[in-house]
């Protein structure tokens, strides 16, 4: 640990930040005609950032331990960059159709990605907080990006108010933990808490958890999600559903198993209860949804519950299972959104599930792709969703938490009903007409990538399993 500044440790983050500002400037300078290149430039820049994540590699902690560049950083930053790149591809066509394509859209998207990246690398609660805010604030703005639309404004406002509220909780928790341990560094915290629980620590951890639970949309801190998801522009919803989870779960992973092993007895119970409540409520409420966006919103809540299993297990197996599932979740969720984005009804987003009926007759491949995503979200083989859940449940059982695994599998059964209903209606329902398939090459590319990835993760999960496995070292080093 030294105070010497090695900027290579933050090279990927700097690239993303520079890209965001470049995009913003380009729009201001080049005007409307130059906007066509914004999306391709963003994607290329993100690819460069991803390459730099690999090039920088694993390094010792930088900035006096405040910034970590370990296996978790590498994996989670990669996931954040991937989700940003796919979201960019999803956005471009939609923005053009809605006449919303502006440089600031891509800049905000990139800043949110930057926030998630910082959270993934945080070795200090203050850095974690910085990342959290950098992630959240662009998302508030993006949610309200359709300025002419009341629902979008409402979504942004609601997200902002509740989000700032939860951020305050988080910050208060940080303050209390500082008081209890004398440092905001996660490593110092780990040492201070090794002795055991004190009331101050307990309250601090609880407040911290509330802040993160809000970001991850865990029950009972999920109430914002359906409204925000429904009101935000569709590609923003897709991005939010993924990148906010990446950031939140990176933070949860950093904060609990890696920073507070001494208190595992306490937080494991709390997280397990949260996970179970989230899985049960998310899946049950999803059963009655008629809007596609709300369905996917509750689905993302339910999946936050599944992801949390990996952390609640408190083991290395749980950690890598969670990261594996995060990748599967990214592809199946963005895939499902890409199907929705390829459809429109009278120029508007295709939102009512009943209106999907009969599309299988006109667009059989689209319906088949939807079937793949829904089967994967429901956790049925042979898809990445199944393998991911299999790992998560294995981790829960391995950590001696059979209740988590049981609730997990039983709620998965419930979810089959509402997930499969969508492709079922598409294939079996009577075509009600009015729905049209739009031409959107970017979205199509995401769709094809996602189908391939979801099936590949289910059929040949070995490579990704190997890739996420180094997370074990973080636990061994402790």
């Amino acid at each position, binding site marked *: 640990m030294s105070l010497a500044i090695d900027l290579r440790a933050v090279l990927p983050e700097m690239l993303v930040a520079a890209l965001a500002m470049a995009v913003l400037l380009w729009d201001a300078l080049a005007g409307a005609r130059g906007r066509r290149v914004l999306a391709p430039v963003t994607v290329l820049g993100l690819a460069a950032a991803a390459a730099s994540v690999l090039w920088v590699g694993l390094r010792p902690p930088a900035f006096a331990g405040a910034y970590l560049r370990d296996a978790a950083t590498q994996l989670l930053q990669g996931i954040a960059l991937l989700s940003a790149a796919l979201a960019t591809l999803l956005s471009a066509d939609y923005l053009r159709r809605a006449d919303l394509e502006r440089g600031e859209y891509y800049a905000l998207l990139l800043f949110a990605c930057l926030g998630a990246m910082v959270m993934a690398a945080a070795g200090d609660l203050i850095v974690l907080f910085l990342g959290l805010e950098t992630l959240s604030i662009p998302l508030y703005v993006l949610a309200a990006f359709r300025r002419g639309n009341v629902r979008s404004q409402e979504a942004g406002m609601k997200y902002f108010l509740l989000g700032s509220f939860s951020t305050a909780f988080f910050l208060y928790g940080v303050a209390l933990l500082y008081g209890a341990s004398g440092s905001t560094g996660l490593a110092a915290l780990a040492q201070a808490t090794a002795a055991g629980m004190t009331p101050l620590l307990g309250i601090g951890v609880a407040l911290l958890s509330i802040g993160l639970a809000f970001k991850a949309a865990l029950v009972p801190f999920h109430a914002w999600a359906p409204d925000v998801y429904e009101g935000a522009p569709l590609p923003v919803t897709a991005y939010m559903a993924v990148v906010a989870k990446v950031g939140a779960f990176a933070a949860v992973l950093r904060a609990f198993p890696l920073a507070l092993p001494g208190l595992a007895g306490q937080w494991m119970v709390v997280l397990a209860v949260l996970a179970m409540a989230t899985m049960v409520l998310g899946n049950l409420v999803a059963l009655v949804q008629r809007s596609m966006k709300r369905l996917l919103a509750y689905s993302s809540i339910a999946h936050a519950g599944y992801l949390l299993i990996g952390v609640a297990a408190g083991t290395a197996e749980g950690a890598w299972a969670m990261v594996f599932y995060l990748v599967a979740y990214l592809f199946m969720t963005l895939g499902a959104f890409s199907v929705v984005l390829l459809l429109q009804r009278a120029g508007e987003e295709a939102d009512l599930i009943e209106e999907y009926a009969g599309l*299988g*007759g006109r667009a*059989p491949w689209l319906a*088949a792709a939807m*079937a793949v995503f829904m*089967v994967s979200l429901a956790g*049925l*083989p*042979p898809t990445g969703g*199944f*393998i991911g859940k*299999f*790992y998560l*449940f*294995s981790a829960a*059982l*391995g950590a001696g938490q*059979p209740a988590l*695994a*049981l609730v997990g*599998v*039983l709620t*998965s*059964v419930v979810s*089959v*009903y509402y997930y*499969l209903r969508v*492709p*079922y209606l598409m*294939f*079996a329902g009577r075509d009600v007409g009015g729905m049209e398939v739009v031409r959107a090459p970017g979205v199509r590319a995401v769709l094809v990538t996602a189908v391939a990835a979801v099936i590949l993760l289910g059929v040949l*999960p*070995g490579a990704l*399993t*190997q890739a996420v*496995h180094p997370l074990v070292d973080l636990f061994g080093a402790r």
Partner: protein
Amino acid sequence: MLTWLVFTPTIGAAAVAVLPRGRAAAARWLGWLASLAVLILAVRLFQAFVPGSGEMQFVVRRPWVPLVGIEYALGVDGISLLLVMLTAVIFPIALLSSWGAIAEKVREFTVAMLLLETAVLGTFLSLDLVLFYVFWEAVLVPMYFLIGIWGGPQRTYAANKFILYTMAASVLMLVAIIALYLAAAPAGARTFDLLRLQEAALPEGLAPWLFAAFTLAFAVKVPLWPLHTWLPDAHVEAPTAGSVILAALLLKMGTYGFLRFSLGLFPQVAVDAAPLLLALAVVGVIYGGIVSWAQPDLKRLVAFSSVSHLGLVTLGIFALTTEALQGALLQMINHGISTGGLFLIVGVLYDRLHTRAIADYGGVAALMPRFAAIFTIVMLSSAALPSTNGFVGEFLILLGTFRRSPPLAALAASGAIFSVIYLLWAYQKVMQGPVVAKTPERLVEVDAREVLVFLPLLALIFWIGLYPSPLLRRSEASVRAVVQRVERRAQGELWLHPVTASAPGGTAGGILPAKAR
């Protein structure tokens, strides 16, 4: 070889999927040819299979997720061989039978059927528990769509009930699979390999729970009374081909699971739990028989008869004698043939009058004499008349059960009587008497395609009925190995008859396995 067998239908499905829209005939032919290719591979497997060994043959092993110990492992023994053969025979028949009935979304239908075939074959051939579970669950999705898209008026309800009911039970098996893996891990076996887990010593107290989870999943699939309520709905609403596959193959996945996993992994617990399962099986035999008799709907009648017949199979499995197990295995095949045939018969009638109510039919034999002959043979096979296949299996089961418990055998035999009653009753109402149909001109004789659908089934009915030894010879050693394993683990249990101590190869020439001393 096994990999080709399992994935040939997938290749076929991919080929059908890329056909241009509207080429229904091409999709039908291509799908059918793919399933015929599987049949050819299966026949070659049958010929190449070495009888007399209880070991797995043609084993394929590749690391799949080496980090976790999951393998891609396939293998075939005498038990799975017969079920693979049945699968390979039934699918071309089911596909051919649907040429008339499925007019819409032919391409999608064919793809679903072929994917289903891959999943069913994979289920029977997997030697790795995770791989097995993957195939086991993969069966649900195409079947859900088959019922839900091409089914009857209540298809949505039936499809949902089918998938939720069977999945709820099988996810518990998933938890049990993981728990088994973790429990065996300290002993040095980080593996999901069935054969190695069979040898693993489990901690005291865990095995009954795992057995319960596995057995519950299988019991729902079988379906064992009182877990059968999904079956009539699924059967009645499914299209004919779906019902055939469901009855002939999917239910067998349950009884196969009993044999391979419940008995294979937890022999000691199986012995302890056998009385309960035997009781449920006998209740199922009698209940299924009585309820069938009361059905006004022909398809429902056949559906409930499955509950009865599969109860008999379960009885044979948990009687835990070699004869009964042999009989159970044979009866699994027989039920596939005869009940598959009965569903096809219902399908033929339904294609003509679009009703399944028994009361709407009458005097059909006079209008469709060839069809009447087919119906008669299949019905008698289902009623287990001597010289048909049903007799051999039922006889072996009852013989084996009798040695285990005479009262149980007597009760189960009454099930056989019920099946004669309801089948003859249905036959009489539908085929004989005055013509009831309002549009008798639509009751046209079966055409060449339909005859071709039934011919292989009729041939099998008589072949197995008169000369079952090629099947018994191939399965005997594997069945014996199962019984031996159970005996070895359950030594000291008085009621287990030392059947397997008698001379090996006793069944080579005749029907009866080695007689008890």
